[in-house]
């Protein structure tokens, strides 16, 4: 017994030493709040963005800096933490609709672009998007497009095309649908050519009817489970983001041959870097954002996350294109005439509460039937 107590005490002392070891010297602190697994972190011999930034900053400005890097699982989690004032961060990376909401609620600081000269490398088509029409608050970090993934060993290539594949009765019991009301209804709305941001009940009713005809064909309604089900060949058709398709491709079993295509109308998202009101050191935050846009970190992050980058330094880089391979580049960066027009027309926006309630009610109805 005494031994155990002694051991525990020793452990506490050790921990205390470790803790004071890193907090004692006087250094600048930058608090960054990002999605989990959303930055190149040095694993699998990749570029360790945060450590490299700390090094680079010390070399450039002669001052030590420590980055507190925390993660969140969803936009809503991040929003809840920030809006109570329980925590404060200097840089956050929310998705488009959340940026619109936070800007409307006066939770973001207008950026000083003099400190972010690398903003020039952001492609023109990623400026003036609906969530930040005057380019005040955000610097795009990644974007993605939803597409359809299918197993070519099961699905006839001729059937691939648009959203119809998810409604094709030939593949009954092999189709996956989103287990999330907004995403599921959107597949039906895109298929029917309806507006995904509509406040008109008839629009949503039509989508519900379409989903009900699909229901008997659906193997299951999934979110993250889609990875394993597609990789193992358990299911043959499903919709997900292009970047995630590559993760599946890397892990597919030998009997599976996954392919990917974009339907004509589909969902787009943009995640962008912002500075919240509670920021303690805006200049420092802007220097960090600028660093994230510079060539080496930007390419490393794009390669790590596997989502498309709006940064010309990245997608025009030969090294990056070579690392990804021609096929991947073609899928990740599909030729789009005008991204901002497509984006502003098809991307999700915040729905008002009445529409959200109605959507959830319809979703329940679908799940019960």
């Amino acid at each position, binding site marked *: 017994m005494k031994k*155990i107590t002694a051991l525990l005490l020793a*452990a*506490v002392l050790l921990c205390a030493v470790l803790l004071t070891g890193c907090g004692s010297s006087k250094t600048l602190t930058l608090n960054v709040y990002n999605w989990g697994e959303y930055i190149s972190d040095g694993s699998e011999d990749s570029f360790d963005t945060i450590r490299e930034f700390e090094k680079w900053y010390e070399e450039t400005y002669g001052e030590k800096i420590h980055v507190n890097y925390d993660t969140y699982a969803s936009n809503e989690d991040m929003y809840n933490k920030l809006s109570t004032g329980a925590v404060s961060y200097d840089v956050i990376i929310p998705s488009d609709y959340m940026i619109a909401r936070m800007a409307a609620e006066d939770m973001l600081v207008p950026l000083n672009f003099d400190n972010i000269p690398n903003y020039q490398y952001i492609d023109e088509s990623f400026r003036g998007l609906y969530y930040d029409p005057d380019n005040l608050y955000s610097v795009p970090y990644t974007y993605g497009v939803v597409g359809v993934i299918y197993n070519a060993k099961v699905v006839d290539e001729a059937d691939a095309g648009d959203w119809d594949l998810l409604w094709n009765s030939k593949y009954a019991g092999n189709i996956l649908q989103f287990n999330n009301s907004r995403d599921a209804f959107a597949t039906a709305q895109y298929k029917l050519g309806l507006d995904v941001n509509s406040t008109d009940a008839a629009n949503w009713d039509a989508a519900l009817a379409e989903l009900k005809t699909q229901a008997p064909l659906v193997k299951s309604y999934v979110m993250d489970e889609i990875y394993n089900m597609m*990789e193992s060949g358990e299911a043959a058709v499903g919709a997900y983001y292009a970047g995630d398709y590559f993760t599946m491709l890397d892990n597919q079993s030998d009997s599976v041959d996954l392919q990917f295509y974009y339907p004509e109308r589909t969902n787009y998202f943009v995640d962008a870097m912002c500075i919240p009101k509670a920021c303690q050191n805006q200049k420092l935050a802007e220097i960090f954002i600028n660093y994230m846009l510079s060539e080496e970190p930007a390419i490393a992050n794009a390669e790590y996350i596997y989502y498309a980058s709006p940064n010309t330094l990245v997608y025009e880089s030969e090294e990056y294109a070579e690392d990804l391979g021609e096929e991947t580049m073609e899928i990740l960066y599909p030729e789009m005439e005008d991204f901002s027009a497509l984006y502003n027309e098809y991307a999700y926006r915040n729905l008002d509460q009445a529409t959200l309630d109605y959507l959830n009610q319809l979703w329940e109805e679908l799940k019960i039937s």
Partner: protein
Amino acid sequence: MKPVSKVYTALVLLFLFAPIIILLVFSFNESKSLSVFSGFSLYWYRELFRDTETLKAVRNTLLLAVSSSLIATVMGTAAAVGIHRLRNRYLRLALDTVTDIPMINPDIITGISLMLMFVFVGRLFGAATSLNFFTMLIAHVTFSLPYVILQVLPKLQQMDKALPEAAMDLGCTPLRAFLKVEIPEILPGIVTGLIMAFTLSLDDFVISYFTAGNGFQTLPIRIYNMTKKTVTPKMYALATIIFFVILALLLISNLSDEETAGSVKAAKEKKKAKKA
């Protein structure tokens, strides 16, 4: 055992341990896949020990678990002794009930209410941020305290009241009697309480989630936050290591319990022998 009960036992064990075995096996997988085992490798273990952010989260979790369980054990033992000595039966019952509330209260309510309180107090003192390591420590002590009391109180009730009285009769000061006679009697309860508080703090997610502040995330929070992309197998490796550490702790605690039980028995037998 009858064959039927053997099968039943095997089934129960299978359901209990199959998930852990699968996790263990796939932590040694060469590729990222969960469906194909392509070959044995220690790759993910190497990756784990290179992931500084995850290791930091492990360190945070351990630091929090060790400090909160020690504080909770000291406070809980003191509280149990106090409750035990109360003469008024109704007051004792009332206190018993009050200390049970945090245990029965759903985690999510404890978590949200603690967060609100910290934010409220923080605003009162004009702090920019109200959550930090210490608020998390307070939260963890709060929810593990009742478990310690629950472990120590029965041991006090089992103890022969005459023992500390006899010690004082023989010239011990009350403090000495407490330290030399009462503490050794209730020690198994204290140790079990400590271990419970430690494991509770280690695996708490909900309350930590609401009370986590800047730059101090625990392991469960970090793993949960990985769900935007898939959880990488290095987490399986970490879970395997944690599983074996917990297993070792459990073995030590069970063995030492047996030892103390054994020594008490031996002492009693000695007494008997002397009497005879």
